[in-house]
């Protein structure tokens, strides 16, 4: 479904991503792991068109999306939950969700999806008229995921959904991600919290200073000492 070839990204003089190859099959949950500054977020931003890549190709459903304007990508079925959540602080919860449906025209479908998201996250329904900025961190993360789902994505990208959340909330968020995967969503997940991410992933890539250092299935990576030492801290 997603196919990245020889991706190169520069920030000024810094070569942040160096010739990365990466693919995600339909229905898979793939994680990108790695320490801070390894280039994980850069890859996601390049997929979403926010960061311009210096070289390489990105195909989504065999369509070259590398030079597509970001505001046109959403129609390709790309849902994005950014690092730090980036919810709209001055819009209500409902307005935040409706903003996700901006590009859609099917009123009935939008209403149905809204209900579905309220089922996933009942707290969002009870707080539907509260300003996004007044939610707690965990609730904001749920809102960010809900907003991405409102775009009716075929392919969902999550950037550090556990960042800055208490462990109990992290568990809840990962449970929901796992559930989405079971319902057939294709997901690309970026995480520092390697243990949690690996538990729900089919496959994972481990990034080290802009290069892919390791790649494999959940089991392979969990049993690989190298990952353990550097990333799992066990």
């Amino acid at each position: 479904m997603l196919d990245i070839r020889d991706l190169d990204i520069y920030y000024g003089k810094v070569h942040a991503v160096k010739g990365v190859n990466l693919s995600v099959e339909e229905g898979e949950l793939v994680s990108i792991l790695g320490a801070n500054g390894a280039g994980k977020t850069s890859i996601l931003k390049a997929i979403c068109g926010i960061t311009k890549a210096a070289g390489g190709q990105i195909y989504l459903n065999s369509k070259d999306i590398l030079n597509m304007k970001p505001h046109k990508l959403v129609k390709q079925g790309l849902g994005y939950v950014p690092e730090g959540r980036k919810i709209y602080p001055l819009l209500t919860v409902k307005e935040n969700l409706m903003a996700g449906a901006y590009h859609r025209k099917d009123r009935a479908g939008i209403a149905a999806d809204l209900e579905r998201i309220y089922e996933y996250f009942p707290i969002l329904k009870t707080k539907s008229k509260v300003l996004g900025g007044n939610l707690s961190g965990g609730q904001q993360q749920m809102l960010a995921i809900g907003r991405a789902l409102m775009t009716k994505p075929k392919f969902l990208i999550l950037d550090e959904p556990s960042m800055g959340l208490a462990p109990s909330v992290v568990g809840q968020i990962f449970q929901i991600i796992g559930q989405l995967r079971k319902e057939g969503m294709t997901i690309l997940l970026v995480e520092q919290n390697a243990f949690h991410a690996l538990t729900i992933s089919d496959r994972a890539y481990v990034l080290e200073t802009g290069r892919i250092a390791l790649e494999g299935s959940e089991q392979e990576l969990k049993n690989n000492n190298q990952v353990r030492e550097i990333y799992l801290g066990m």
Partner: protein
Amino acid sequence: MELLKIAKVSREFGGLKAIDDVSFSVKKGAIHGVIGPNGSGKTTLFNVVSGHYKPTSGEVWFENKPIHKLPPYKICRAGLARTFQNLRLFKQMTVLENICAVLDESSGVRILDYFLFLNRVLRIEKETVLKAEKLLEDFNLSEWWNVQADSLPYGVQKRMEIARALATNPKLLLLDEPAAGLNHTETDELSGIIKHIRDDLGITVVLIEHDMKMVMSICETITVLNEGHLLIEGTPEVVSNDKQVISAYLGGEW
């Protein structure tokens, strides 16, 4: 001996109590951890202690003097320095300038010296730079001395923020999530730095941290906050085995 004493401190934001009647104290020479789930009021507590927020009620005592009515810069001059959760560097200044800007406060140059073009300005400048150099050396930052703060690697920025706080010559250092965003090697280095600050420089350290492994390994006492209340206080063993803490902090599934 109690260095810092927090007595029945509360702070409200528009009716919402971010911290509610919290009391505890920090012993001189301790490494003291403050933990708790997100939104439990840890950073607010730090902001009250460092004077950025005034407490709605309650008092903060430092070296047996009340400090909760002082402006932040006076609290700092009393010997209490801090770092921030989201780095707050002087972004457009070099590493050396960041440190010097802090050292200037105690350097003794008067405004009049500038008006009279006194050589004193240049002499003290030399002393200041020398002091800054030593501090940079101690924190392994010398190679970065002439780099603008916002173009430093993240780990170096964090280290520099700690060095800068130490330039105020504090008795107590408050660290707000020093390990956030660091990888494991960097976190281990950080633990070493914190121990160095306490053991060799004799500075008491209070830190807020999410990285439980680090907190448990370096702190002697830990205060747990939950929803603005103080939940429990004790040694890492006591805290990590407390049922209340486990259910409130770690969630049921752990």
